[in-house]
Structures are given as C-alpha cells and as structure tokens.
C-alpha cells in the first residue's frame, strides 16, 4: 500500500474526502492547499460532484473544443486497437473476385501467352517483331528471327511501355477541349475542301496504304526526319543515280573504316548492322573483320573497333580525303596530325587488302563527305558487295523542305497543316521558328498520341493509335511488305492517322479495310478471315513481293574533286561540338519511358541525364571535377553555341578527342511543361516534380536540337566553334559504374589479339597463353618433378570448400555463355531483362545512391596505360601502381562485359544466408526465395560479382517513385509480367536466369514427352542480344550449342581463382588489332 511519504499534491482531486490509509492513521492527506486552509472557494465547491458545472450545450458550443486534439494516451489506445484489429483482419482470408470472359475469344486461354508478328517503325528504327501478349495485354517485344528484318534494340524493346503511358490522349481534342470524332471530322474535312495550300508534314512514311491515302487526299506531302540523313541520299543520287539510302552489308566486309558513323549504336539502320557485323567477328572461323574508327565522341562502335583514332569533327573530312588519297592516289590528302595520318595509312592498307570486301562509312550528314566516301567505296569495288543501293526507303526526309515550309508558314502561305508521326516543334533544327509559325496558323491538325511540343500548339488533335493497337503496312525494301497487326484493342478513343486522312478525304472506310484493299483490290469486309494468303501473311508478318533484280549501279565520279577541296578547306575552332544519340534515348521519342531513362548509357553509365562529355585533359585544364560519384557531383559548365547558351554538367570521358565536347540529343522533352509523360520530367527526393521559377516541371536533361546546324540542304550534327566556360556550380549525375578500369585483374576480362589467338587456336581449353587455366599453389608435388615449387598448381575445380552440388552431367544444368568478342555493350539485353522480370525503376536519386535494382548490368572497362610492370620500371610502389591503373588511358581500348548472377555451384551467398532464402537447385540455379528472405544482406556482401540487389523501398507504393515506377501507374502496371513476382521491400533480388521461362520450357517438353529441345528455353537477355553474344541452354545436353561453346578454348569463368564454379562462361575477347599495336 501507499507509503506515508506520498506528497499531498498527487492525491486525486475527485476524492474530496482525504483518503486515510488504514496502515498509517495518524497522517492526513489533503488534495491541495485550499483544503488544508479550508478557503471559501473550497467550501463552495466541496459538496458538488462536478465542481464547475457546465451544461451540455455550453460544452458543445465551446469553440475551444474545435482546437482540442487527441492526446497521447488516446493515440496509444487507437493504435492498440488498430493494431489488434489489423492483426485480426489479417487472419481472415480476403475475398478475391474472379471474373471470366462472357464470350471468350478462341485464341485466348488465361495464363497462356500468345505471340503475334508485327512490325515496329518510329521514323528511325525499323524491325520485325513478335509481340508477346498475356490475356490480351502486350507485355514483351522480341525480334521475329524466323522471317524478320533487324533485331530489336533497347528502344524497341522498351517501347511496349509507351502503350500504357497515362499521358496518352483519350480522345480527339479541339482547342485543348475534349471533342468527338464527328465534330473533328466535320471541322477538318471542311477546311480541307477550302481554298489555299494544304500540307501534310510527316517523318519518312514507309506505309504503302498511308501513301495511297495521302495521294487520295490531295494534300501536299512534306517529309522530314528527326535525325536527317538527306546527304546520304543526295550523294547516292549524284554519284550513282539512285535516290536510295545505302545498305551496308557488314557481314561481307573484311575491313571497315568508319568516320564517325556509330553503326553499332544509333547510326541509321542500326537494328540490322549489329547482327551483320557480328557475323564477321567469329575468330573460330579463322577470319575476322577489322574495324578502324575515326571519331570524336567515344561511341559504341569506337569502343568495339579494333583501331580507334580520335579526331575532331572538322578533321573528319580530311580523314576521308586522306583515305581516298592513300587508297587510290586520287586527290589531295587533308592535313592531319601525325598520329591520325599513321592510323589512316593503316586503315588504307587494310582497305586495299580487302578490296571489294572493304567498306567505308561516314556518319556526318554532309554531302561532300558522303561523296568522298562513295569515291573510296567505288574505288575499292565495294559497291555491290559491301554497300549497295537497292531502293531502301528509309530516311527520305528533307530538312530543307521543312525549312522552306517554316518560312512559308511564317509568311502565311499555308492554309492547312496536318502533322503526323513527327514532332518538329521539338526536334527540327529551326524548332522555335516553326513553333512560332505554327501557333499563328488557323488550321492546324496533329495526330500525335500525346499533347507533345507540336500537338499542344495545334488547334485540332486527332490522336492516332499506338502501333501495338493498329493495323498497318510498311515497306523498307522492294521485295517485301511488312505488316503491323494490332495486339490489343485500342485503349483510348483514338484512330490511325491514315484512317483519319481517308475519312477527311470523304471516303468512309476503316483502316483495316483500307490496308487490305491496298494489297487485294477485290477485298470485301465479309472476307475478313477467309483469305488464306492474307492470313498467312499476317501470321508471318510480311507479304512477299516479286521484284525485278536491281540494276548494277555505276559510279559517276564527277564532283569528287570539288568535295575534296571543300573538305580539306574546313577550319576547326578551339572547342568543337559533336552531337550524338544515345542508344537508350535516340532522338527523344522515348523520353517518357522510365525503363529507358534508367538504362545506363553503355559508355558513360549515366542514367536520367544528358551532359557534356569532355576529355580528361580538358577537364583538368578547366579545373572541373574529374571524378563523379554519389558525393562528387559533376561541374556545371556554360556551353555557348552560335549565340545561345545552356548550362550542362560535365562528364569526363576517356576517348573523347581533346578540344571537343559531345552532347546527346533527345533530352529536354516537354520544355514548356507539355504533358508528354511523367518520366520525362525530373523528380526530386520527395517524389514530386522539380519545377522552375514559373512552376513548370523541369525536363530530364537539356534539349540540344537547337544546336544542330543547317548546312546547305542538310542538317549537320557538329559545330566547329563553341565556347565552354566553368560556372563554379555543380550538378549531381546518377552513374551506375565508378570503376573505369579493372586495375589489372585479368581474371575478370581476358583479351587477346587475333594473331595470338590464331597461333594457338587449336590449343586445348586452359592451355592457350591467352586463356590459361588458373591454378592454385598446393604444397604437394603435382608435376611429379620431385620438387614443390610454383608450378605445382591445381586447377580450382580440384578444390571443394563445400559439398558439391550434383549438377554436372546430372539432370539439367542451365548455363550461359557470353562472347566478349561480339558483345557490343548495346544494352538491349539490359532492358529486355528488366521488362521480363519486372525490375523496378528507382529513379535518379536512388541510382545516385547506388540503389539501382538492375538484375543485369554491363560493366564497361577501359584499358589503362599503366601496369605493374611499368610501375616496377618507374620505381612506383605496388599500391601506387594500382592507384595509377585506376586511370584509363586518353584513348583507351574498351571492353563491355555483361554481368549478372553467375549461378555459382559453390555459391558464397548461399552459405551465409541465415534463413536459407537463397539455395541451390539441382539444375545449377542459384535460387532466390523472396517470401523467405528477411533482408540481412549477408549474401550481397558475400557475392564476389556484386550482382545482388537489395529492395530498399516499396517501389510499387511509395510516393517517391510515383512519377516513374511503372507499377505505380494503374495503366502502366499492365506491362508487368504476370509470371514473375513483383518483389516487395526488404528482400534481396537478382538474376534468376529467367527461371519462369525454364519452368515453362520444361513443362512444354514434359507435355510433348520429349527431352527439352536445345533453343526452346532462352532467357530474355539471350533472346534480345542482336549479335548472338549470349547463348543459353542446358550444359548437360550433349547436343546443346551452349555446351559446345563452354568447351571452346576461349571459354573461362570470371574470377576463376576464387573457385565458386559459376554456370556462366565468358569467351575471351579477341580484338583484330595489328600485332604490334596491341
């Protein structure tokens, strides 16, 4: 009971009679001093139960009541109740609804994917694809390898997300207000019948039906391309008499010289070049092409070239003339540095040796340059073998026509302008003038799917279908017409722009009927599915067309000398600018695609930004930040080109020609806050958009299209004189890789030159000098020479730290081989992996903190000039040497190395997991069981390859990710793969080798009662790889391709010496360099 020492004030007020403790009767307690003194006030209230009476009305009308808030105790009570209620509710099984079709389409079975052949074309990339749909939703795009043209790149791969972009317009608009098709049709047909000049502006139209509709409409048709290749066509016309974009046949070329043409990256018809180039890069065949690259920025092509030389944009023309002079003795060679001259001589030697199997390409959209290149190719006899002009329809756009149109519009000479499939207010060289003229016009129609920079200035928006919703036909080469077929019902009230055009011309026909009647004049809609030939064409994705064999073209040769003198006369400035396209962002059509924004640039490894790339020497000279990391932001510089300035961060880039800078196009979309999609804008740390002083959202990156130059009739992508000034400010860049070199750890990347390879090409696996088996020293006499010495090594396979998993030759053993010789680093595999496996998009801020969730990354390593040997010679300490080996050389050789979970048979991650959430399967897979994982991250710490990713946040729910994570958008989440779990916070995740595909492949085999056929199970990355560098299969299947590759003498394990026995094999990179140049 209470002891006597309790202070009187603690006794409760309500107990007006002092409480007497029966244990201490002598003591008296008062409830207060009032009671003790027996004051008047005490006496008056003594007998009342409620000391200060207050009526209910008075209480309820008391204004202070409004401001009372729940106290701590109440809060705790509510919390306790809430917790209990939630716990109890969690024990109840929630009722889940299941809604079957009322009338099920015949070909749809819930849970079974259908694939449809279709064709992707966005004005730049053209590729035949297969679209995977689940329950009527397209979720994955892959190359149609059986009948197709091209291989999907990262952009095509990720484009499936744009279908579900919530920024898409859900119906036609007039003057920014929602309208309906009848009103729009009436309005537009009306102005189309009126007087005045009526123009249709598009990118290059490849659709025969659309061209028919345009002809029928009587509109004047003007085409321009976001990236202009007009000079290529003009040069072909002048030199060969054919207005065609050249077809480069890299699979025939033994010597390739590229002057700034990034054919493995984003140059022209890149979707087909990679596969063709890789066909000539098979060292086993005894023959390998040699690529010489002369370029300004470090490009994918340059990083994969055998010889790479840095030249400024103004020097590129002189490289071409020098090459022409050395190959043919024709013309005057341009003035070049000694180093460049040597490189040109070497290239010329290879070209001459290759003869008609040589190929020269130049990236500059410059007539003189292309004519000199044509002259070299013609002199080599390459025309017809490695380069041909057979009516390829790509890139018919003319930027001079657009320029003319703009001035006509400004002058009021255009009455009606209809804009389809292009965005000139963003990507035209004279975008500002165009936008101004456009907004002043009375009758403007856009068919854009989103209210983008151009559409938002148009009076009428008649939104077209997304390509996955629409029928269509496309013709890239004369002998086939590729078909586009819808894979989903239109999500919004949209209509193909071809159909709009047809209807505005007064023909009442739907687009499907129109397309079909283009190819079958007697088509009637009753015969929708009955025509077997059409059905076969839709199934295969194309209609074959009989063509007459093309005429051989001859080189006219006039005008070369003029071109030579023009090129030789070019003067460069102190700092030159080369604009380029990233493989992820292209010309900016995909700016709102979060998956592509977060796919790192293959060379800089920077996500979510464009920036100035600058040589290390220039960075140091300007005193800018040379190292960029989480706490090391990039320096901002002010770049001034032709009078306009922009501030951009600087990324120090090995291989950038000194005295030049490079900036990527395709960024800065939605500069006026147009609603082009949430992921196109910068999101701050708290998840809301960053805004400028006007409250407009800040776009990701800066738009540098205004810095393209109009030279003559063509758009040029370089500037010869720009100024760069330091601002003293900084800007954070989100970069996924910090290490630039592998610091002499040769067990990660193995590399040799072609002649060394060739000398030992028959050596047994592990015996060749360029791929020696790594052995560990043991204290026993292995060699049997009676002495124990350094030779006494045992291969790592002889050591077992743990019990071995019985996977070799038992059951399945899923494995992968990655050929570093043909891997270009293009990142198509990265996006494919992430879309297949629902890898979350985490945004720039999280990437900056190295919390990117990428299951697959491509490590890009630059070579260093320094080595331990050199350090020894120079007397540098070992540590010092290693430190110097961190710095790449000024013009380094580059290795791209795809890295994902190696599925080690002696996996270090498995042994440290306290809850056995990561375990090994008897098929060689390192399995990750999310529902068991408690997130200790021991496994990630113990992984030698650093491929495990910790899921830090509730990405599908937390507001920080609301503006870009696909799972947070009710529409965009439709793209998630239902066969793969969407992981939640607090678990570790990593590459599963697409175990969902393995399981379904095994099931198919079991149902068929046959062994799993080689090639029937393939991971997303292997499927996407355009150069076939990645192979996947069952290593225990004696007939499997992947097994044969793993037994090749070039095959090795990364970090073999640690003995973790991976199921992924890399193939030694072979570079076809001159032996003395290696």
């Amino acid at each position, binding site marked *: 009971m209470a002891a006597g020492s309790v202070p009187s004030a603690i006794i409760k007020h309500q107990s007006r009679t002092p409480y007497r403790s029966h244990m201490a009767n002598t003591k008296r307690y008062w409830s207060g001093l009032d009671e003790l003194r027996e004051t008047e006030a005490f006496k008056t209230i003594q007998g009342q139960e409620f000391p200060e009476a207050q009526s209910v009305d008075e209480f309820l009308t008391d204004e202070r009541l409004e401001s009372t808030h729940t106290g701590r105790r109440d809060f705790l009570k509510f919390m306790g109740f809430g917790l209990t209620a939630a716990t109890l509710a969690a024990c109840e099984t929630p009722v889940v609804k299941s809604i079957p*079709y009322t009338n099920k389409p015949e070909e749809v079975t819930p849970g079974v994917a259908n694939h449809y052949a279709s064709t992707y074309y966005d004005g730049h990339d053209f590729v035949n694809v297969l679209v995977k749909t689940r329950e009527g939703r397209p979720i994955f795009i892959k190359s149609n390898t059986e009948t197709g043209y091209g291989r999907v790149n990262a952009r095509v791969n990720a484009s499936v997300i744009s279908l579900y972009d919530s920024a898409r317009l859900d119906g036609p608009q007039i003057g920014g207000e929602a309208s309906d098709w009848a009103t729009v049709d009436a309005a537009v047909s009306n102005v189309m019948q009126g007087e005045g000049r009526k123009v249709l502006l598009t990118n290059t139209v490849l659709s025969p039906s659309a061209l028919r509709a345009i002809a029928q409409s009587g509109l004047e048709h003007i085409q321009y391309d976001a990236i202009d290749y007009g000079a290529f066509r003009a040069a072909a016309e002048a030199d060969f008499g054919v207005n065609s974009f050249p077809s480069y046949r890299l699979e025939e070329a033994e010597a390739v010289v590229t002057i700034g043409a990034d054919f493995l990256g984003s140059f022209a018809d890149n979707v087909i070049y990679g596969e063709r180039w890789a066909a000539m890069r098979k060292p086993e065949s005894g023959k390998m092409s040699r690529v010489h690259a002369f370029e300004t920025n470090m490009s994918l092509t340059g990083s994969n070239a055998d010889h790479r030389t840095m030249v400024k944009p103004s020097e590129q023309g002189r490289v071409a003339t020098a090459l022409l002079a050395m190959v043919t003795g024709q013309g005057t060679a341009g003035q070049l540095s000694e180093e460049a001259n040597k490189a040109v001589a070497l290239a010329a030697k290879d070209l001459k040796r290759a003869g008609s199997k040589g190929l020269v390409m130049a990236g500059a959209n410059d007539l003189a340059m292309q004519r000199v290149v044509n002259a070299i190719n013609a002199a080599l006899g390459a025309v017809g073998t490695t380069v041909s002009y057979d009516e390829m329809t790509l890139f018919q756009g003319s930027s001079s026509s657009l320029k003319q149109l703009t001035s006509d519009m400004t002058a009021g000479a255009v009455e009606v302008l209809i804009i389809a499939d292009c965005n000139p207010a963003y990507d035209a060289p004279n975008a500002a003038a165009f936008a101004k003229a456009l907004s002043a016009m009375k009758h403007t129609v856009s068919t854009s799917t989103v209210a983008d920079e151009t559409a938002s200035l148009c009076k009428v928006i008649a939104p077209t279908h997304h390509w996955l919703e629409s029928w269509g036909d496309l013709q890239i080469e004369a002998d086939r017409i590729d078909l586009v*077929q819808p894979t989903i019902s239109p999500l919004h009230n949209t209509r193909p722009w071809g159909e709009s055009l047809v209807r505005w011309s007064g023909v009442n026909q739907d687009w499907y009927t129109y397309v079909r009647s283009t190819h079958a004049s007697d088509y009637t809609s009753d015969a929708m599915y009955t025509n077997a030939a059409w059905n076969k064409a839709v199934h295969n994705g194309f209609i074959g067309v009989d063509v007459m064999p093309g005429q051989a073209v001859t080189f006219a040769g006039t005008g070369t000398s003029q071109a030579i003198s023009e090129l030789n006369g070019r003067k460069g400035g102190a700092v030159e600018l080369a604009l380029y396209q990233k493989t992820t962002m292209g010309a900016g059509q995909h700016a709102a695609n979060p998956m592509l924004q977060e796919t790192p640039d293959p060379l800089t490894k920077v996500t979510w930004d464009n920036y100035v790339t600058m040589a290390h020497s220039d960075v140091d000279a300007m005193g800018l930040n040379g190292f960029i990391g989480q706490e090391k932001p990039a320096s901002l510089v002010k770049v001034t080109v032709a009078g306009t300035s922009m501030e951009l961060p600087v990324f120090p880039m090995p291989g950038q020609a000194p005295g030049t800078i490079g900036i990527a196009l395709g960024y800065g979309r939605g500069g006026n806050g147009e609603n082009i999609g949430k992921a196109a804008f910068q999101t701050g740390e708290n998840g809301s958009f960053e805004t400028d002083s006007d409250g407009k959202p800040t776009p990701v990156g800066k738009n540098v299209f205004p810095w393209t130059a109009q030279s003559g009739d063509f758009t040029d992508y370089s500037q010869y004189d720009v100024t760069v000034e330091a601002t003293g400010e900084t800007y954070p860049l989100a970069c996924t890789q910090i290490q630039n070199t592998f610091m002499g750890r040769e067990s990660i990347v193995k590399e040799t030159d072609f002649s060394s390879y060739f000398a030992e090409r028959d050596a047994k696996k592990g015996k060749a000098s360029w791929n020696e088996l790594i052995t560990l020293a043991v204290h026993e006499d292995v060699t049997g020479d009676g002495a124990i010495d350094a030779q006494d090594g045992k291969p790592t396979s002889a050591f077992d730290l743990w019990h071995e998993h019985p996977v070799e030759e038992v059951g399945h053993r899923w494995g992968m081989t990655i050929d570093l010789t043909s891997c270009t680093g293009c990142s198509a595999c990265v996006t494919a992996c992430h879309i297949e496996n629902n890898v979350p998009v985490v945004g720039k801020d999280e990437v900056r903190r190295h919390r990117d969730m990428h299951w697959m990354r491509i490590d890009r390593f630059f070579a260093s000039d320094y080595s331990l040997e050199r350090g020894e010679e120079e007397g540098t300490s070992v540590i010092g040497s290693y430190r110097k080996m961190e710095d790449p050389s000024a013009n380094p050789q580059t290795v791209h190395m795809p890295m994902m979970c190696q599925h080690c048979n002696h996996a270090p991650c498995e042994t440290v997991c306290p809850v056995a959430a990561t375990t090994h399967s008897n098929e060689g897979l390192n399995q990750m069981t999310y529902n068991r994982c408690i997130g200790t991250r021991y496994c990630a710490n113990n992984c030698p390859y650093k491929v495990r990713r910790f899921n830090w946040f509730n990405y599908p729910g937390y507001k920080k990710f609301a503006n870009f994570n696909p799972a947070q958008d009710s529409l965009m989440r439709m793209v998630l793969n239902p066969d793969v779990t969407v992981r939640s916070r607090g678990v570790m995740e990593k590459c599963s080798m697409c175990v969902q595909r393995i399981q379904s492949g095994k099931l198919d085999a079991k149902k068929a009662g046959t062994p799993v056929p080689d090639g029937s199970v393939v991971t997303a990355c292997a499927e996407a790889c355009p150069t076939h560098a990645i192979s996947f299969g069952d290593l225990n299947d004696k007939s499997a391709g992947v097994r044969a590759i793993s037994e090749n003498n070039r095959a090795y394990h990364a970090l073999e010496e640690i003995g973790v026995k991976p199921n992924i094999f890399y193939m030694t990179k072979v570079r076809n360099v001159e032996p003395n140049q290696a």
Partner: protein
Amino acid sequence: MVAYTGFRAFRNILTACLLLTATQAAADIWEEGDIEAGQALFNANCASCHKVTNEVLAAPGLAGIADRWGATDELLIQWIQNPQGAAESGDKYIKSLVDRYVPTYGWMTAQAVSPDDIKNIMAYVQNPPDAAPVADAGSDCVTVDDLPIADTSDTRSTWFLMLLVLFLIIAMAAAGVNRSLTNAAREKDGDDLLEDAPYGVRIRNWTWDNRVAVSLIGMFFLAYGAVLGYQGLMRVGVVEGYKPNQPVKFIHSVHVCENEVDCKYCHHSAYESKHAGIPSTNVCMNCHKAVKKGRRYGETEIAKIYDAIGFDPTSGTYVDGSGKNGYTSPQDTYDGEPIRWNKVHNLPDHVFFSHQQHVVVGGLQCQNCHGDVETYTVGRVAEVEDINQLVDKYPGLIELSKPTLTMGWCIECHNKAEIDLASSGYYEEIHHRLKDNLRGNEELRKYMEDDKITVKELGGWECAKCHY
C-alpha cells in the same frame, strides 16, 4: 488477329485431313468401334448435352440412334462435325431434325472429332453400360432435393458463450442476495456482519487460501491456452473448408453427378494453362441455350447468365449492343456485366502453381486436390481428411496429412508422388543422364533407396519450382 502459334491454320489442316479420311471410315460407322474409347470421347464431348438413354438433357437422348438415323453415314459425320453444313445438304431426314430440335435446343456446337472417333462414340452409344449401375451411381448423387435450403452456420458456441455469461451474472446476483440475506439474519442475531470487501479482494483472498489448487488449475489452463493459441496460429492462412457464397447459385452436384458433365468440359484450361479457370459464360450457354429452367431455383439463377451474355430465352437467340435480337451466337457488342465469382482457391501471389503440370504431366485426378466435387453444392476448398477418404473411390489418389492449400501439403505430396522414368521421352532423357556417369549413378542410388523416384528427388522440393 491471327495467333502466331498458328493454331487456326493447324486446325484447318486437321479438319481437311479428317474430311479426307471421312469417306473411307464412314462405310462401317456402326461397327467395330472401341466402346471404351467411345465412352471417354462421349464423356468429354457429348455428355454435357446428350444422354445415352432416351432421357433429354440439353439435346435428344441417343438411345436407338442406329435404328433411328435416316440419312447416310457420311451425313451423320458431317452432322456432328458441322451441323449447319449438313443441313445445307438438303437431306430430308436432316431437315426434319433441324425443324424439330433446333428451335428448342439451338444448333449443336460443331465437334472436333474424327470419323474414327465418331465410330467409337457410336459403339459406346449402342452399348451403353448397364442401366443398373448407372441408376446406382445416380442414387449416390446429392440431388437438389437433398440440399438444405440455406447454409446453417455453426452458432452453437456463440449461444453457449452467451448462456455462460448470463449464468455468471445470475450466480453473482444470487451470491449478492444470499449475502444480504445472511447479513440481515446476522444483524438480527446480533452477530458480526460479513466483511464488506470488493469482489476483487475477496477473490484474491480466496485464491491465496487455495493457492495450490489454483496454481495447478492455472497451469493447466495456461498449457491449454498455449496449445489452443498454437493451434490457432497454425490455422492462420489455412483455408480448408472455405466456401464463399457465389453470385450465381451454381450447384456442382447437379452438373457433375446428376448430369455427368466432365470436370474438364467447363474447366478445360486446366489442361492447357496454369489456371483451371472459371468457365466463360459462352461455355455455360452450350447447354443452357436449351436448359432454361433449373429444378431448385427455376429461372432466376439461369437468367443471370443470360443477362451477362445477352441471350433472350423466349426467342432462343442472342441480342447485340443495340438491343437487336435474332443472332445465333453471342455478340461482342452486347455490353453485359460479367459474372463476378468469388475465387475459392486463392494461392498467395508468390506461388506459381500450374494445373497443366499436375493434370497433363503428373496425371493427377481433379479429386486429388479438390475432393469429390460432385458431392458439393458450391465450390469449396476440400478438407484433407475428406480427400483421404476418397482413396477407395479414386484409386491412385495420394493420402496426405497437412491441410490443403498449405505449402506443407504441397511438399508432402511432392515427397510421396512417384515418377515413372520410362513414362515419357523427357524422363527417359533424365534417366539416361543419371545412368551414364558416375556422379549420376550415385545420385540415382540415393533416389532408389526407397525403391521409387519421387517428385522431390527430381527437384520438386526446390524453391524455384514454385517461387520466382
């Protein structure tokens, strides 16, 4: 849209092949068929509408068809494969069939069966199993008349609890009265009054006085509570017996048992997909185009599917979006509200279960996991004890102990289920790989210690089998 899988093309070719062989096989359509094969085919394709007796289900009974058939055998084949096509032949007998049955029952769905299949079916139809066992089987069925009107939920324990509380209150009140009376008596007698302490104090005092007994009893209750609590926690996530009410009062027993509709007639995607699926409404319509009235609920429940798909039972035709009547097939323009069923078997999202794997490859019977659905009214999660009792009825059924739809249940079965390595080319290849090398032999010996190879031994216990 044309599926890239080429399914349509494949089917066309198949049909063409079938038509080619039709003439050869037709000659002896009524003879030499395989009765057993016919029974399987009949159950899979025909039994949902036809009976082998004279009884009319959703279409005429087929007893005596051989004697009745008045057209050529070729036309019978065509009539089954493409009824509308056969009607166009202008044959009188066919026309009489069309006039007589189509207005009531609608057109028969074209059946993808070959002439040989038809021969087998006809063999079965002519030699149906003995009538007596059929009648017996029929009597096993839970007929609708046996069904309780409403589900009586178990409320006994609630009543018991309420009574207990009431009893306690009365007991305490009585004790109070007793006490007052005692005090009154004592006051009268001039004795000391009973000490007036609150209940709490008195209970505490009593507890202290009887501490040994109270501790013993307390410990018992504590242990009992712990056991109950543990069991309760073990039931968290266990959904055995889950039987949600459904928007349509669909009765499995009527369809499966009385009318002998095969499970895979409605849940056919169990054979093609990971989902068994709830049948789409157009599948219901295959029979309910004709069966317009149920025995128990009359027209009200069937009307719900008519509403969903747009069917007018009076005219026997479908309606389109604009309300136009007279279509013979469901119209996509009709904007009906699909039926929102309550999902019965809910697996967590991180579990990937494939029906196809179990039914097609594993050869499991539906009853192995779902129990004897033909005795159910609404679908429910079968209890493992109930399933175990079916072992006599369905030989090959695997008896398990863990609650259904728990991971313990899954892996217990994977540990028991055997794989016959000679059963298919896939397993033969796996067997070869095991036999052909030393390490494999060692593994195989370990597998064969219990003289059988279980699913577990070939990877059935591996996490990535179901979780990815």
